[in-house]
C-alpha cells in the first residue's frame, strides 16, 4: 500500500505539473496547480494527521465509538515512511512549474511519458526519499541527463560518506545509549548537572543523526552524479534563532519560506502580520515533523522565539554591524553568549522531540531545579562529553568570530597542512567507524 501511495504521488505530480506547463490559459494553469497541491496536501493530511484529528474528534464527542467503521480505520492508518518528504517535493514541482510558467519550462518538455519518468525519478531517488534533503524541482530537473563515470567527484563521495557515517554510527548511535536516561522517572533521581549534560547530549545526537543522514544522502547523490542541497550549515554556532533556521534543516526551512511564508506575505505586510506569519509557518513546520500536539508546541516555541527576537531587534543587520565594530575579544564574548543562549533555547525545544508527552517534559524541567547540589554522574557525563566532542570540533572552526581565520588557513584546497589534517581526520573517523560504532538505530527523522 505504501508503494502504491508513492506511485500515486509520482503520477499525480507528474501529470498535474505537465498540465500546468501546457495549459492553454491562465485559468487552466491555476486549476491544475491548485488540484496538484490540494491532492498532495489531502493525502498527507489523511495519512499523517488523520489519526491525530480523529482522536481530537473522538475524545471530545461522547456519542462517537472509536472502535467502529471509518473512525477505527482513521485511528489506525499507517504512516507511510518518507511521506512528508516526497509530498513536499511533489508540491515543489507543481509550484515551481506554475511559477516558471512564463519562463523557460524546459525541464517539463513536450512528452508526458518522459516527464512522468523524470518525476518518478525525482520523487523516488533512493538516497533522499526517506529523510531528505527535500530537493526542489527547479534545482533537480536540470540535472537529469546522461551521467559519465569520469565526471563523478569521488573525493566528495568519499568525504561525504565518511563524515555522514561517522556522525550517524559513532556519534548518534553511541549517544542514544545515554540520552535514553532523559526519560522520567530516571530524570528525577539525577543531578541537575547530569540532566543538563543529557540534554546537551541529545542536541548533539539529533544533529549527528540527521546531519549524518543528509550528508550520506549527498554523498550517495554525488556517486550517481547528482548534487543535492546542503541541509546543515553548522547550526549550533547560530547567534540568533533566525540564523539557526538558516543553518538547520535548510531544505525544509527554505521550502517553508518559499512555499508558505512568502505566499502568506512574509514580512511585507506590517509588524503584526509578520508575527502571525511566523507563528503559522513555525507551527505548521512543527506539525510537519509529526502528528502530535507536542510538535505543534515545539513549532510555536520556535515561532515565539523568532517573534521575540524580531520585536527586540536582536537579529537585524544593524545590530550585527554594531557587533562587528567591537574589539575582537568583546566580539568573541558577545558571540559566545549569543551562541550559548540560542543553543540552550534550541536544546530545550528538542526536549519535546525526546519526550513527546508534555507531562514528562515538564517533569524533566522540574528535575533541572531539583538536585542542584548533587554531583554529576560520571557514568553518563563522561561518555556523553566524549561522543559529543566531534560535533563540537566540527562546529568550532566556523564560530563567527574566527571563521575568517579558518577560511584563510584551514582551507584544504589552498593549504597543504590543512589537506594533511583533513586526511588524518578522515582516517580517524574511519577508524572509529570500524571500531566504535554504536548499535544500529533507526534515523530519528525516518519517523517524520
Amino acid at each position, binding site marked *: 500500500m505504501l508503494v502504491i501511495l508513492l506511485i500515486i504521488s509520482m503520477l499525480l505530480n507528474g501529470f498535474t505539473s505537465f498540465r500546468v506547463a501546457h495549459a492553454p490559459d491562465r485559468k487552466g494553469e491555476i486549476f491544475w496547480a491548485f488540484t496538484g497541491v490540494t491532492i498532495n496536501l489531502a493525502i498527507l493530511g489523511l495519512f499523517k494527521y488523520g489519526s491525530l484529528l480523529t482522536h481530537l474528534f473522538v475524545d471530545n464527542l461522547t456519542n462517537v465509538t472509536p472502535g467502529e467503521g471509518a473512525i477505527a480505520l482513521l485511528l489506525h492508518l499507517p504512516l507511510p515512511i518518507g511521506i512528508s518528504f516526497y509530498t513536499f517535493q511533489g508540491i515543489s514541482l507543481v509550484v515551481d512549474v506554475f511559477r516558471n510558467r512564463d519562463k523557460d519550462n524546459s525541464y517539463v518538455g513536450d512528452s508526458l511519458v518522459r516527464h512522468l519518468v523524470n518525476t518518478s525519478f525525482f520523487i523516488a531517488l533512493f538516497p533522499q526519499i526517506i529523510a531528505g534533503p527535500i530537493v526542489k524541482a527547479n534545482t533537480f530537473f536540470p540535472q537529469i541527463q546522461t551521467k559519465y563515470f569520469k565526471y563523478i567527484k*569521488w*573525493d566528495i563521495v*568519499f568525504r561525504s560518506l*565518511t563524515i555522514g557515517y561517522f556522525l550517524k554510527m559513532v556519534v548518534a548511535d*553511541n549517544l542514544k*545509549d*545515554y540520552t535514553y536516561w532523559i526519560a522520567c*522517572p530516571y530524570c*528525577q*533521581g*539525577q543531578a541537575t548537572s547530569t540532566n543538563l549534560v543529557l540534554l546537551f547530549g541529545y542536541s548533539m545526537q539529533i544533529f549527528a543523526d540527521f546531519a549524518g543522514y543528509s550528508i550520506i544522502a549527498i554523498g550517495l547523490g554525488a556517486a550517481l552524479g547528482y548534487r543535492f542541497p546542503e541541509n546543515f550549515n553548522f547550526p549550533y554556532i547560530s547567534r540568533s534563532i533566525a540564523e539557526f533556521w538558516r543553518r538547520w534543516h535548510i531544505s525544509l526551512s527554505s521550502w517553508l519560506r518559499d512555499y508558505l511564508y512568502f505566499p502568506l506575505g512574509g514580512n511585507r505586510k506590517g509588524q503584526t502580520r509578520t508575527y502571525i506569519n511566523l507563528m503559522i509557518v513555525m507551527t505548521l513546520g512543527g506539525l510537519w515533523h509529526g502528528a502530535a500536539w507536542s510538535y505543534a508546541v515545539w513549532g510555536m516555541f520556535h515561532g515565539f522565539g523568532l517573534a521575540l527576537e524580531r520585536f527586540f531587534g536582536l537579529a537585524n543587520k544593524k545590530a550585527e554591524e554594531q557587533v562587528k565594530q567591537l574589539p575582537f575579544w568583546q566580539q568573541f564574548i558577545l558571540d559566545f553568549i549569543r551562541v550559548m543562549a540560542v543553543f540552550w533555547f534550541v536544546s530545550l525545544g528538542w526536549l519535546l522531540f525526546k519526550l513527546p508527552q508534555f507531562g514528562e517534559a515538564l517533569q524533566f524541567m522540574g528535575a533541572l531545579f531539583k*538536585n542542584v547540589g*548533587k*554531583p554529576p*554522574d560520571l*557514568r553518563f557525563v*563522561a*561518555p556523553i562529553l*566524549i*561522543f559529543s566532542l566531534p560535533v563540537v570540533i566540527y562546529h568550532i572552526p566556523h564560530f563567527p568570530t574566527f571563521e575568517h581565520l579558518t577560511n584563510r588557513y584551514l582551507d584544504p584546497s589552498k593549504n597543504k597542512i590543512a589537506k594533511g589534517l583533513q*586526511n*588524518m581526520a*578522515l*582516517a*580517524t573517523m*574511519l*577508524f*572509529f567507524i*570500524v*571500531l*566504535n560504532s554504536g*548499535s544500529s538505530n533507526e534515523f530519528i527523522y525516518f519517523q517524520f
Partner: protein
Amino acid sequence: MVRPLLILIFLLSLYHTLTIGKVLPSSEGISIEETNYVKVEKYVYHDSKIDVLLVGSSRTAKLDPQYISDDAANLGMRGLSSATGLELVKNTKLKPSIVLVEINETIGRQDEDLIKSLFNPFNYYIRLYFPMFRTEYRPVSVFIQAVRNFLEKEDIISLEEIDQQRINLEFRETIVKEAIQDNDQPLSEDAKATLRRDAESIKSQIKSIEDGDVRVVLYNVPGDPRIDNTMKQRQEQEFLRTLFPPKKFEWLPEPPAREWNTSDGTHLISNDAKVFTEFIRDKI
C-alpha cells in the same frame, strides 16, 4: 581518498598490536548494552574453566562473582534475563561446573539478535583472531577505563561510599510506591500464561545444559521487602515454584530474612549485593 585509507590501515595495525600486547586496558563497558556485550564476549571467548556461572537479569548483574570464587563469572545482563545466558552456555563447548539461574518474572527476555551476532561466523572469527573488534576494546571505552583505573588508584572508595553517591532516597521512595501500587493486585491469567510459556523454554535450555554434566541451581535475588511482599510478587514466586518444582529442580535456599536495601526497589545496593553473593557462595 588513498591517503586516508593508508593512514587507516596504519592506525588499525597499531591498535591491533596494542590490544594483543595487552598494553591497553580492557573495558567493562560504559553503557548497558556495551556492558552486556563485554560480558557475553568474555564468556564466549574464555579459554579457562569457569567454576560457577550466574545467569540472569540486571538483578544478578549487580552480584560480583569474585565473592564466590576467582573462577566464577556473571552473565547477569541488564534488560535481559536468564534465557540469554542459558542460550550462551548451550552454544559454547567449555561448560561451567555450576550454573545458577535467576528465576523470576523476567525469564522470558531473550535477545536473539545478540546471540545471532555473536555466533555469526564472520563476527565470531574476526573477534577471535583480532581482539580489537571485541566490545571490550572499543577505543572510547578503553580510554574511559584507563581514566577510571587511574582515578581509582588515586582514590579507593568503599562500597558504602559508592552506594551513598548513587542512591537518591526520594527517587527510590517514589519508585517503590509506584511499584507497590502496580503489584497490589493478583497475578493475572495472562501473566501466568506468559510465565508458563517462558518456563517451558527455560526448562528445555536447562535440560540441554544438564545433559552436559552441569549442575543447575535456581534462585531469585531479593528486592525491597515492601515490593517482594506484595500480592502479585508473592503469587508470582509461588507460581514459579510450581512451574519449577523443587522436587525436580534444585533451588537455592531462601536467603535470610533481612531488610534488603535497594537503589530503586529492585536492584540491591553494592553492599547488600555482596552479602547476597556471599550467601550464594556458602550455599552451593
